[in-house]
């Protein structure tokens, strides 16, 4: 299968197989009118199968949020057809309005217009906690 190379934009690579659409939605890519290629189940020596997203536009991406969704992702920045930068996202220290707290006892369950904020409490295990009630998600996405 051939997909045209991009001139200026991003290649989000090493996405866990099956997670590409999740990232597509998180990044609101459906709001862009540039060419976007979503490649599912591409062959990978390291991962067996992987997903890839190619975006033919220079957009601003919160790389660390991608790290929360899938810490193995790599983000390649392309200029004039050449890869100029490659980033491995870190787990973000804090994520805001990416996931919702599902604890029915949490103030987020009733307060209007509240930001849903989670902080990284255990980097090794990748555990996040709601800053209001300390519960770990069981999260639901926005």
């Amino acid at each position, binding site marked *: 299968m051939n997909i045209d190379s991009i001139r200026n934009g991003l290649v989000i690579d090493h996405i866990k197989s099956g997670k590409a659409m999740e990232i597509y939605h998180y990044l609101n890519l459906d709001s862009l009118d540039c060419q976007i290629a979503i490649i599912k189940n591409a062959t990978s020596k390291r991962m067996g199968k992987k997903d890839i997203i190619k975006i033919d536009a220079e957009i601003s991406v919160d790389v660390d949020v991608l790290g929360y969704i899938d810490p193995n992702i790599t983000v390649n920045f392309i200029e004039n057809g050449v890869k100029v930068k490659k980033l491995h996202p870190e787990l973000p220290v804090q994520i805001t309005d990416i996931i919702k707290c599902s604890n029915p*006892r949490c*103030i987020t369950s009733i*307060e209007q217009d509240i930001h849903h904020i989670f902080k990284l409490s255990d980097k090794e295990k990748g555990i996040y906690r709601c800053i*209001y009630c300390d519960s770990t998600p069981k999260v639901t996405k926005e």
Partner: protein
Amino acid sequence: MRHLIDISDLSVTEIDELIDVANDIIDNPEKYQEKCKHKKIATLFFEPSTRTRLSFEAAMLELGGSVLGFSEAASSSAAKGESISDTVRVVSFYADIIAMRHFKEGAPMVASMKSDVPIINAGDGGHNHPTQTLTDLLTIKREKGGLDNLTIGLCGDLKFGRTVHSLISAMTRYKNIKFVLISPSELRLPDYIKNDVLEKNNVPYSEYTSIEEAMPELDILYMTRVQKERFFNEADYERLKDSCILNSEKMKFAKEDMIVLHPLPRVNEITTDVDDDKRACYFKQAKNGKYIRMALILKLLEVE
């Protein structure tokens, strides 16, 4: 401007200073009679309380200040659907400091994000209760002479017991502390406290389901009530409510200098025959609550 939302908002040094001020207030109350003249505290209690609300109000009155507020959500604009953010924005026009209790976890934190005056968490659901912890620490220091080298038994509802969660957070910062957790399996301490607080700080703990087994090694027995208001299901409450009861028979297994604490109110988890035991310190503890809250109000209002 400082708030007190979680006990960890205060350093060990600051807690020691608060305890020193509280002890000085106990010894020299006249020195503090006018320290908060013309200052007002708003007690916003969205959930019922006797001791905590009255002790905050008594604390401010004894400092020469005045009080305003409400004692249940039904008598506030919350009943009309007003948000915490809006309530606090408005009340901070009328008061110099706010003590808030709310049935939802994290409500005082939300308040602190919107308030122009200091917010004190006076209990948020089953989450935290830092001023009860300050009360506990003052009582432990006065009764045991210090806050190091203690084996502390925590008994009852350790799952929803916010006083227990805050006390553990505070005590792990002192030397040679060991916890003995006594509860039915359904009301065990949440994993996030075991993992993030106890294990992370290498604080040893053991778990029991009956008081008698644990009693001989304890320096402090901290009893808690199984709280009906934390259960979504009444049948679960009925099944668990009598699971940990302390009586004078069980006190025979305890050390001579052990102390019994309880944040109160009690229902039946400490039988009244224990009240006359010299080791029962829960009423002294309630009394100390006013003094430590006086010290806290002075600190947060930056009154010298």
